[in-house]
């Protein structure tokens, strides 16, 4: 953890960015306000290579429990790679090598012997494009419970309603639960995906640009939903929309070329970031 005031930054922003581009060591500036938070997810010295190319460099990040944390940064900065490493989706790519670890509620995510399927049940994932399964609304929501062998109709009904209510979709679909999910609008489909993700009561909800395929009204609904879910759920969201990060998240992590550059409370990151690089990025001067 560092407390470097912006004005004392020894190297000018451009020099530091160039140094990062040359692959030199860079120490993340993590604000003291983050360090005080109780972390549900901890990323520790995490590195990731795609073949010969290193995509993530020594990431150390503590994701506060019950809060919304946004990962921002220009394209190719590694924010989606980092998010996808949390539920080990990157394992599916053969050329990926990692070192370091992540811990969910203290349990290692990458230790040998971790059951990846069990691990993923502890996390919900919402993707850029809504991906409802080609089945009814009801079956979409209770899918994970079915997979786990739950057959009690009462339990399934209850989870379905609770999850749809949690995703602010219940009132819109309660009379057509048996209809195909593919008939819903894009925004409704995305909320259905959130309902499906929270049905198994995950410890963390991972969102990878969840609104980028949605119109402003649907985006608004998802953002309000994130607000409602925070507290009960921890949300880690990747967004290329800085304003979205500003208005929806409690904490913001700024990444650049595979490094975590600066990490702090969103209101601090967007009002008085400690590093000039962050300032330049959020004010649109690069990236």
């Amino acid at each position, binding site marked *: 953890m560092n407390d470097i005031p912006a004005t004392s930054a020894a190297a000018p922003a451009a020099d530091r960015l160039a140094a990062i581009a040359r692959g030199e060591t860079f120490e993340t500036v993590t604000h003291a306000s983050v360090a005080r938070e109780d972390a549900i997810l901890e990323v520790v010295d995490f590195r990731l290579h795609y073949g010969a190319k290193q995509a993530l460099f020594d990431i150390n990040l503590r994701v506060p429990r019950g809060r919304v944390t946004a990962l921002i940064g220009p394209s190719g900065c590694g924010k989606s790679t980092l998010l996808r490493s949390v539920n080990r989706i990157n394992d599916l790519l053969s050329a990926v090598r990692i070192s370091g670890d992540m811990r969910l509620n203290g349990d290692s995510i990458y230790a040998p012997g971790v059951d990846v399927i069990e691990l993923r049940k502890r996390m919900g994932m919402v993707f850029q494009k809504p991906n409802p399964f080609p089945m009814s609304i009801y079956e979409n929501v209770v899918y994970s419970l079915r997979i786990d062998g739950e057959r009690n109709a009462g339990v399934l009904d209850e989870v379905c309603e609770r999850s749809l209510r949690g995703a602010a979709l219940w009132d819109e679909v309660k009379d057509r639960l048996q209809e195909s999910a593919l008939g819903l609008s894009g925004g409704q489909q995305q909320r259905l995906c959130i309902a499906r993700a929270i049905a198994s009561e995950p410890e963390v909800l991972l969102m990878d640009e969840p609104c980028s395929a949605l119109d402003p009204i649907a985006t*608004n609904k998802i*953002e*309000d939903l*994130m*607000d*409602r879910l925070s507290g009960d759920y921890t949300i880690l969201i990747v967004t290329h929309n800085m*304003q*979205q990060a*500003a*208005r*929806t998240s409690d904490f913001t992590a700024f990444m650049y070329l595979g490094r975590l550059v600066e990490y702090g409370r*969103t*209101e601090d990151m*967007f*009002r008085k970031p400690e590093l000039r690089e962050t300032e330049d990025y959020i004010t649109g001067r690069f990236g």
Partner: protein
Amino acid sequence: MALLHFNRDLENLKKQFLSLFALVEDNLRKAMRSLEERNDELAREVIRGDKSVDGAEVGVEEECLKILALHQPVGQDLRYITAILKINRNLERLGDQAVAIARITHALRAQPMPEWPPEIGEIAEKALRMLQLAFESIIHLDTAIARQVWTGDDEVDELTERALLTLRSEMRAHPERLDALLGLNSLVYILERVADHATNIAKDVLYTVLGEIVRHRGKEFKRG
């Protein structure tokens, strides 16, 4: 726009802002009472209380900047936040006016107080009433009340002229009361400033609702 989050931040801002407004109004009334009752202890309380006003002013400004940075409000929301930023500065200065009145009480604590020209009481009553109305106009975003404040300013200006003339002739007639009369002279100017601040607040309320900068455009906007 994440409306839930925005609305929550906006509600917090309103709470902070209105409690600052109430605090300033209270300090001004206390300051006036301290002078009327020659209560030096009350005057000291007002002077000490200004620290809270300054702290609250900074808090409101921080909250406005946070909302601007995080939510990028537009339309009436944008006008409301910028109006609060400006009114906030007026409130801080009104807090200083309360202190200035309290300082008069303190400075004159050992002096016999001459009878006040009746205009001073009238100005005080009107200026404080204008401030109270300005408060209501921002709570309800009510343009009619805001205009009432604006027109009130003309009456205060007129009363101020008269009060200053009366004080000047008193000074000539009773040079031995000069200190006290000078104190009252300052009081008149301070109260006039209070009315001016209330008027500025009212104009910012009109701006918030109408979307027009109404300053220097009294002919068009003062009477609706």
